[in-house]
């Protein structure tokens, strides 16, 4: 369980996170979405206790993160997969971390096998590909079998097989009752894995909802229709709560009516329907639309 309450974090004159409040619950995968520079990594550093909030409180499993007596058992994190000494082997990197908390050596081998790095365990971590570094980072996060797992952009740089593996891993962890909090700047990476969603932009909370609700309310479905008489059909469909728009390619897009009803209206008026489809706005589009005003660095067009 992660509880963020009215957290603000400033670095000098720059406010990275402002008045953020949300809760991440155990047993589900919660996605943490925002464009680059939105404050995701800052928030995750505060959850891991390496940065201190300027104001507000961060609680992990009921305590401020830095007050845990056995932190590796409480919070496992990956902030930067490249944060390893380049000439140290994966095994020795994990062993040094395990030693701080009296975690036995066999557990190191266990997590190395769990992330599929068994064959590379004794290779220098500096020679790892990004995908292997990500796996090593996950192994470090899981070392103490923590109740809360926090991963910054864990899917970034993974190949298709790696992404599939990561999704399975995250669901498994949530299935074990752990709190799983995973950031991404791409909606598509999160959509199939997370069931809860926190969206931030420019350090402010934009949405705190379930993925299903997010899809239903923020990403409404539209009906696309092409017929023999678009003008008449458009007039007939007009009603309170229904919006009709003509697209550039001559089709009508209707929100607020199901496709069946659009078809029925056309049929009753004797209009021939040439094309009728239900479209869901792409989650990526919705995400971009939602955070558009909250992007710090955008290319001038």
């Amino acid at each position, binding site marked *: 369980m992660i509880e963020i309450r009215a957290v603000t974090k400033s670095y000098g004159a720059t406010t990275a996170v402002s008045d953020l409040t949300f809760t991440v619950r155990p047993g589900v995968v919660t996605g943490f979405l925002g464009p680059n520079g939105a404050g995701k990594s800052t928030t995750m550093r505060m959850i891991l*206790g390496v940065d201190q909030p300027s104001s507000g409180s961060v609680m992990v499993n009921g305590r401020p993160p830095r007050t*845990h007596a*056995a932190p590796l058992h409480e919070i496992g994190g990956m902030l930067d997969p490249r944060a390893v000494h380049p000439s140290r082997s994966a095994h020795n990197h994990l062993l040094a971390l395990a*030693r701080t*908390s*009296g975690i036995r050596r066999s557990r190191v081998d266990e997590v190395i096998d769990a992330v599929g790095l068994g064959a590379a365990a004794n290779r220098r971590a500096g020679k790892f590909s990004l995908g292997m570094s990500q796996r090593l980072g996950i192994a470090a996060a899981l070392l103490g079998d923590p109740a809360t797992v926090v991963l910054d952009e864990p899917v970034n740089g993974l190949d298709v097989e790696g992404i599939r593996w990561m999704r399975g891993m995250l669901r498994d962890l949530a299935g074990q009752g752990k709190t799983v909090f995973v950031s991404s700047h791409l909606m598509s990476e999160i959509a199939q894995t997370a069931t809860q969603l926190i969206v931030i932009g420019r350090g402010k909370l934009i949405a705190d909802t379930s993925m299903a609700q997010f899809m239903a309310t923020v990403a409404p479905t539209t009906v696309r229709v092409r017929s023999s008489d678009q003008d008449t059909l458009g007039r007939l469909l007009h009603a309170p709560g229904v919006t009709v728009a003509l697209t550039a390619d001559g089709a009508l897009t209707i929100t607020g009516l199901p496709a069946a009803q659009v078809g029925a209206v056309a049929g009753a008026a004797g209009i021939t329907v040439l094309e009728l489809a239900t479209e869901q706005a792409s989650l990526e589009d919705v995400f971009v639309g939602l955070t558009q005003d909250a992007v710090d660095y955008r290319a001038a067009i």
Partner: protein
Amino acid sequence: MTSTTPNPPPTSGFLPAYSQQQRVTQARVMRSEWTKLRTQPAAFWSLLSAVILVVGFGIGYSLLRVARPPHGAAAVASFDPAAVSLSGVQLAQIAVGVLGVLLITSEYATGLIRTTFAAVPRRLPVLWGKAALVATTVTAVSVPAAFAAFLVGQSILGHQHLAVPLSQPGVVRAVIGSAMYLAVIGLIGLGLGALVRNAAGGIAALFGLLYGLPLAAGFLPGNWAADVSKYLPANAGQAVTTVQPDPTQLQPWTGFGAACLYAAVLLGISAARMRRGDA
């Protein structure tokens, strides 16, 4: 250094049972730091170069002095055969100082320090663990190196009847003191590294402290130069490595104490900075 000692009970009655097993203790952090040190090639190479410099330069300088022995009563009286054979310490101090710097700055450079601090949220055990390791490993390799340099050096100087035996007062102190001086320089390097958090900056600061300050002090007017010079870290610390009393230096243990004080102050300031703030 095993973690077989029973852990203290949890401070709060609220903590679950597992925290008994996975509590972070100073001894465990020491073990973790030892694992890091022995798997960091730079540490091995700095220690090896320290040994080579102490022994190699000591032998080389002894050969030089035996070829050009002191002339005249005054020169013979002030000749310090022990210091000649231990002169490699002057160079080896860079190797151990760099070891101290790198031990901490390599973690800042890679970002590993965040992982370390997430695992050890009180943070200071990490600094103390590194300090204890620097002191023990540098001493452990420097004591035999200093004895080897001394013994080989004296056997060379013996050809001109310039050698001193270990039994002469102050000689054992100078040999062991050389190793202890190197350990203190390692700690000063660690303190500098923890303060500037950057390898290049830390090494530059180390050079400034060991070589730059004595140069700058030389420009001071009149007696000030000598008065200030003897209190500088390198000069103060090296008082313990000589046998012949030198009026330009502090008393051996006074000087060594002053060097320890520098290390303690540097480590204290970096500890204060490390404990607060973001990693």
